[in-house]
């Protein structure tokens, strides 16, 4: 067994530390060491987006990031989106629009939507679709997801 | 007389006829009559005493709960249908 590295990072605004082997991905560590299971492994090769996180404020696939790279960086996952009992507008709109069926891709889409709206608070449909193109959903056909993001954007602009 | 509609394989045993007149009182008896008239015609339908898995019986427009025991009316049309599946 390889020697483990000691990593200090910030996850959802909180300082966190963990031990990991160099070969472990951020996805593995989030799930298995830090008990943040919102990130899912759908493909392991960065094609489906269900492991999406914000890594230093950029949308990224955690299956493509080695855990050791998190040293000194910030990571945001779906578990950090709600404030206590108050859901993030994206979370609320996904529920209102029934923008999820099986829900396995939902954490990834919420993070991707958050990353988009933090950069571009007033995206048109084409911009939304482009921003979400790295997240695969097989259940919904994307219609209600796009509408949910549109309404969340509107809600966030008006607040 | 109720009418038993023959599946394509069954018709080969019956010289191409598409349907047979049968009396009940039940579907089982109707099938037994068909077997008596054309030996071998129902061989593929049964597994022991029961309908083979994958088949069921519809009478007129309804799939019946108790295929072989279902009672027949004089106007009943008996159909042997594949069990619907899905994904």
């Amino acid at each position, binding site marked *: 067994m390889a020697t483990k590295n000691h990593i200090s990072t910030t996850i959802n605004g909180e300082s966190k530390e963990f031990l990991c082997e160099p070969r472990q991905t951020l996805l593995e560590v989030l799930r298995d060491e830090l008990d943040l299971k919102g990130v899912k492994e759908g493909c392991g090769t960065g094609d489906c987006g269900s492991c999406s996180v914000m890594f230093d404020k950029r949308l990224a696939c955690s299956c493509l990031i080695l855990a050791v790279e998190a040293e000194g960086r910030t990571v945001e996952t779906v578990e950090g989106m709600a404030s206590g009992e108050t859901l993030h507008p994206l979370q609320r709109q996904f529920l209102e629009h029934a923008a999820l069926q099986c829900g396995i891709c939902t954490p990834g889409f919420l993070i991707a939507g958050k990353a988009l709206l933090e950069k571009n608070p007033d995206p048109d449909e084409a911009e939304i679709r482009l921003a979400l193109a790295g997240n695969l959903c097989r259940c919904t056909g994307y219609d209600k997801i796009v509408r949910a993001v549109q309404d969340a954007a509107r809600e966030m602009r008006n607040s | 007389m109720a009418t038993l509609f023959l599946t394509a394989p069954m018709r080969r045993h019956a010289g191409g006829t598409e349907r047979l007149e049968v009396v009940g009182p039940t579907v089982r008896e109707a099938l037994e009559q068909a077997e008596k008239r054309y030996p071998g015609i129902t061989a593929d339908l049964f597994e022991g005493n029961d309908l083979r898995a994958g088949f069921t019986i519809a009478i007129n*427009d309804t799939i019946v709960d108790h295929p072989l025991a279902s009672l027949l009316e004089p106007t009943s049309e008996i159909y042997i249908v594949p069990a619907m599946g899905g994904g």
Partner: protein
Amino acid sequence: MKTSEREFKVIGTRPVRHDGIDKVTGRALYGADHSLPGMLHGRVLRSPHAHARILSIDTSRAQAMPGVHAVITGDDLPSVPDRTEALGEGTTNANDLSNNLLAKGKVLYDGHALAAVAATSAHLAEEALDKIEVQYEVLPPVMDVRAAVAEGAPLLHETLRTAGVPESKPSNIAKVIEFARGDLDEGFAAASVIVEREFTTAMVHQGYIEPHNALAKVDADGQITLWCSTQGSFDIRSLCAKVLQIPLSRLKVIPAEIGGGFGGKTTVYLEPLAIRMSQISGRPVHMVMSRNEVLRATGPTSGSVIRLKMGANAHGKIVAADALLDYEAGAFPGSPVLMGAVVIFAPYALENFRIVGRDIVVNRPRTAAYRAPGGTNAAFASETLLDELAEKLAIDPIEIRRRNATCEGVQAPWGPRMQKVGYEELLDAAQSHPHYSAELPPPNGPLVYGRGFAGGGWGNAGLQSSAILSVNNDGTATLVTGSPDIGGSRTSCAMIAAEELGLEAADVRPSVADTDTIGYTDVTGGSRVTMATGLAVFEAAQDVKRQLRERAARMWECPEEGIVFEDGDAIRPNGERLSLAAIAGKAGRTGGPVIGRATVNANRANGPSFAGFLVDVEVDTETGKVGILRGTVFQDAGRAIHPAYVEGQMQGGSVQGIGWGLGEEYIYSNEGKLENASLLDYRIPTALDVPLIEAVIIECPNPAHPLGIRGVGEASIVPPPAAIANAVAAATGKRLPVLPLSPPRVHAALQTGD
């Protein structure tokens, strides 16, 4: 059974789903999220060859590794009967299933499992796989139906003879089925126009985002607990019990939340292996598949070759149809060719037809169900030719379908008379929809535009469901069913209970229970949950209402006669009312807990759901790329319990159909290795590939169901490939009878004069 004309308070509304908050906060536990202390990690060794005899497997070096606690091969599974029996969702041959789980004698596809290892870490398990030595005698692979039926083709199974053909010799044709009626020659003789084509469709995968998983724990007394993402915990229990030859009572299956199934998670791959290795090691065993394994070694649906000839008279009425459907079964018999044969003309009334279907084994993964299994392939053929007949006869494409539409009293191609169905209503809705008459853009350089329509349908698997509805002391209720929730069905079921008891949807707490906690319930699939489990819930609610009337009588100290339960109250003849909450509060003093229960076999409540897809495409004649500009899906839901979830099924199925039509296919090398076993190269639609899809719900209530419900889960995947092909034909003048309509194919077709 009459459908009531009542006004609904809850049914037809769109409450937020009960499990919604868990799903948007990452709290919901899917199969891979479960863990147990001390658990081992299992991984599977898979064949690199498409077709080979296994000469030997030596697992000794893997067994010897520290940290490896179990290694199994096909020899570690017991013998099971080699016959087709009622098992799983329909019928299964347990011996074939077992051989698929761990190969015995031969490997039959790239990815076929041969051995499994359980070790203290996943990385260690994978290292142990490398230490298993297998000697193969590689055999020539048979990769498609044309090769499989050719004279002298290598045989996958030396003793396989064709069922349905007496005295057949061994071949790769496992079964032949036939539906026929009338006189084909007479029929074609009456035709003004006849069209005939050969269609080819590719093998495609359900594409669920969540890979398969299983966590098995065997206790010292032999009791087994299994967590897995499944479409049916009782289904999985039956399959595991059969394959491992254990009594059903020894196995408890707990359904985790499931990340998509579409039919692909109604069978077993990892579960029996995890159980077996847990039995051997004495520790829990956790297994997950990689995406590569999912694509190579689970259950895609059949590629096919369909030869179809259709004739119509001058009025557009189909006078004869002759179809031969050749479907890939994969490595073991069991393609959905029978259902394809049922669906191919399902929306239409025909008098003269012959439909022959052949189930053909090839060196590809054993096929499993995929949303309306067999139907999309078949409709691709029939809906294309209908379109061609319309074109040749100068009849509007929707009009020609109306002139042939099935309706009440028509004798269906597969036998029985049709009850009332909504296909005509659906065609009317499509024809009068603004999309149908909207202007298309004019050609613009290399870009051309076209519109296409196709219809299709699917029945309902009926089958068995159970429900338990308990009334709580405060007048709220708890509903327990056994139907894993893939698309919001636990909420639809709660809504039915709420409607019947006069409650709000939020007052009914639904849970999806394990095999110890609820009665037998068949799979979530076959478009059956809202219809069949909903029927069980409806009947359990009637049981509750009966008991509430009894209790009210006791509280009023009057006879029960004349007391009704309506709108949430028991009402006596003199007008006095007692609310559900009031009765529930006193339940302990009037006889004990009020619990309603029902079990149903929903076969007789069946009612087909028809669908249609209207699509505008843009074809780039320089690159062959087909873009979807606009899509509208129509479907008969009978009665939409939760319209947003019905829309969701319609839109989801449509987009899967778009993927099937435009880009998805299994690409094998000549040696039979799968070359595109990743989500990069197995191309499912992204958000950029589709527009918003309007969903138009038709409600022609199902006369056989007390609430008029028709199952909607599947039919929407049937029309899109044909609709897209019809649109491409309208845009380019070229009929492409091959799926997918990928850019290289479209481009090549536009180049030739063909």
